[in-house]
């Protein structure tokens, strides 16, 4: 299937042959309303995070609060270090996890692209089979925890997400569509070793593919909360912001309790907490990096997903 190409021919056909203005207006209304619905919740949450606690008490969450306030944000600085530590953890896990995952994926996908590699079929199957069958949640959990020691440590939040067969397919397709086989042959004849061919010759050509899987992994790690739910029991020092937020849903003063403040301080903090706007401020903290980077990374992800969905 040719997916990425023909964007230019489109205009010609549109100019030649298109729906009348009435129908087009109808399309604009349907698509426009849905598109707005997709971002309005985030705008609403930003508004709530800047709403004063009094206003929330009086009229609830509203697009037009009675009184604006930045107390939620100023509070985040007074609140001890749990919040900032979790935010830092989110960044740390994302950066370390993504770097490792991308390296492993590229190394796994490259030999799969090499038609002259002897065990290509075997390793291809090894990866593909896990897409259609698995041991299930509980055996995986028990083995990771009691056999591999993934429990209450950073490894538990990184290792189980280090490899995705889907990203391997995306990467392999990028190799297949952008790296001509003759290039590899020429490099081999010149006496280039396999690793140096990959690093010096192939990788510079497939940077768009690497960008794509980097973004997919980074978003995956950034949004990860399930691994914390499974593997973190006691060590709240290492949880990412997503999980902190999840815990706060059911336990509003979780943040104050788990900060480094002493008993009396902590309970005083919990009492005066602008808990509702504060929670929404944390949501803003999580979404903001994605929202800022989104306009730039969107096209890579689109390219990657459309390439990856073509059958491998």
């Amino acid at each position, binding site marked *: 299937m040719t*997916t990425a190409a*023909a*964007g230019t*021919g489109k205009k010609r*056909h549109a100019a*030649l*042959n*298109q*729906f009348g203005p009435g129908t*087009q207006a109808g*399309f*604009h209304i349907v*698509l426009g309303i*849905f*598109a707005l619905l*997709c971002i309005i*919740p*985030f705008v609403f*949450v930003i508004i709530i995070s800047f709403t004063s606690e009094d206003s929330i008490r009086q009229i*609830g969450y509203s697009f037009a609060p009675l009184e604006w306030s930045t107390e939620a944000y100023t509070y985040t600085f007074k609140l001890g270090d749990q919040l900032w530590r979790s935010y830092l953890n989110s960044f740390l896990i994302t950066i370390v996890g993504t770097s490792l995952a991308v390296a*492993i994926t590229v*190394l*796994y996908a490259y030999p799969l692209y090499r038609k002259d*590699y002897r*065990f290509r079929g075997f390793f291809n199957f090894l*990866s*593909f089979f896990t897409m*259609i*069958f*698995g*041991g*299930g*949640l*509980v055996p995986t959990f028990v083995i*990771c925890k*009691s*056999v*591999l020691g993934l429990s209450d440590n950073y490894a538990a939040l990184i290792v189980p997400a*280090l*490899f995705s067969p889907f990203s*391997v397919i995306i990467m392999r397709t990028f190799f297949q569509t952008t790296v001509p086989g003759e290039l590899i042959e020429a490099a*081999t004849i010149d006496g280039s*070793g*396999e690793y140096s061919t990959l690093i010096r010759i192939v990788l510079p050509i497939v940077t768009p593919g690497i960008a794509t899987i980097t973004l997919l992994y980074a*978003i995956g790690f950034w949004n990860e*909360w399930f691994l914390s739910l499974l593997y973190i029991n006691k060590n709240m020092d290492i949880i990412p912001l*997503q999980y902190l*937020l999840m815990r706060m*849903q*059911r336990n509003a003063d979780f943040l104050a309790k788990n900060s480094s403040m002493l008993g009396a301080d902590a309970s005083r903090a919990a009492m005066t907490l602008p808990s*509702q706007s504060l929670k929404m401020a944390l949501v803003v903290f*999580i*979404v903001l990096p*994605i929202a800022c980077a989104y*306009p730039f990374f*969107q096209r890579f992800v689109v390219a990657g*997903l*459309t390439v990856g*969905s073509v*059958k491998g």
Partner: protein
Amino acid sequence: MTGRSGIGSARRKKNFWLTTMMLPGAIWLLLIRYLPMLGITIAFKNYRAYKPNTFWNNIIKSEWVGLKNFEFLNSPDTAVMIRNTLGYNILWIILGMVISVAFAVMMSELSNRFAAKAYQTMMFFPYFLSWVVASYFVLAFLDPTSGMINALEKASGGTATNFYHDTKWWPYILTLCNLWKNIGYSTVLYLAAITGIDTTQYEAAAIDGANKWQQIRYVTLPNIRTMIIILLIMNVGKIFNADFGLFYNVPQNSGSLYPVTQVVDTYVYRAYANTHNLGMSSAAGFLQSAVGLICIAGTNAIVRKIDPESSLF
């Protein structure tokens, strides 16, 4: 002779170095994906702790109990969770396909390309957010005390609804959430397929007197059929898998909503988290994987019969 063995050793060397590249990924797959497949035996055993209390020793010493761990299938809870999983999935596969194909077609027919790009960008955004974040979005509207809907209700003199204890709303809320998060993704896929269609097909159709609706029917839809089928296979293969985050976080893990929010994935998790019943939760997970494998192989076989080009493997 020497030349040939030279080639042979070069080939061996090449295969050796390429294999070293596979190792990190292969080791990960063996440890995190294949080792747990051995753990499936827990489903057929009465798993208990023995001395020394290590996982493998416990597995080996535990006695075989046949299908005893599968007795949960008889309970009424199981019927509910299977109904929920299948019901939501079937509904969402159909709705998702119809809506995203429609959106993609509409978007491709807009003459204002800038607007089309803007709609796509906005629609794709929720796909990149987690269900934890989405659950707060939902909370902003549905919160029992401060949520916008209840605030409006109270302002107009009505009484507040406690959404998190009232099952009747949740089939709609979950459906909306699922569409909100995933429509953008499938629309992008279909749109890419439509953009790839050779424009001369439309010109030929126009010359033959086909209007725009007929062109969609006879040019656009047949051209994206393969894409529709591929996504369908993938989704039908996952028909016994539910999006854990959606069913766990968005309803705030509220117990009174279980009749409409319990699905296989949450059931397995809760069975383990609440009762630590390893045997039963492994059995449920195993059934889920096995049925998933059968579904994906089955749909693929059917597709291969009808249209070999579109099959996945």
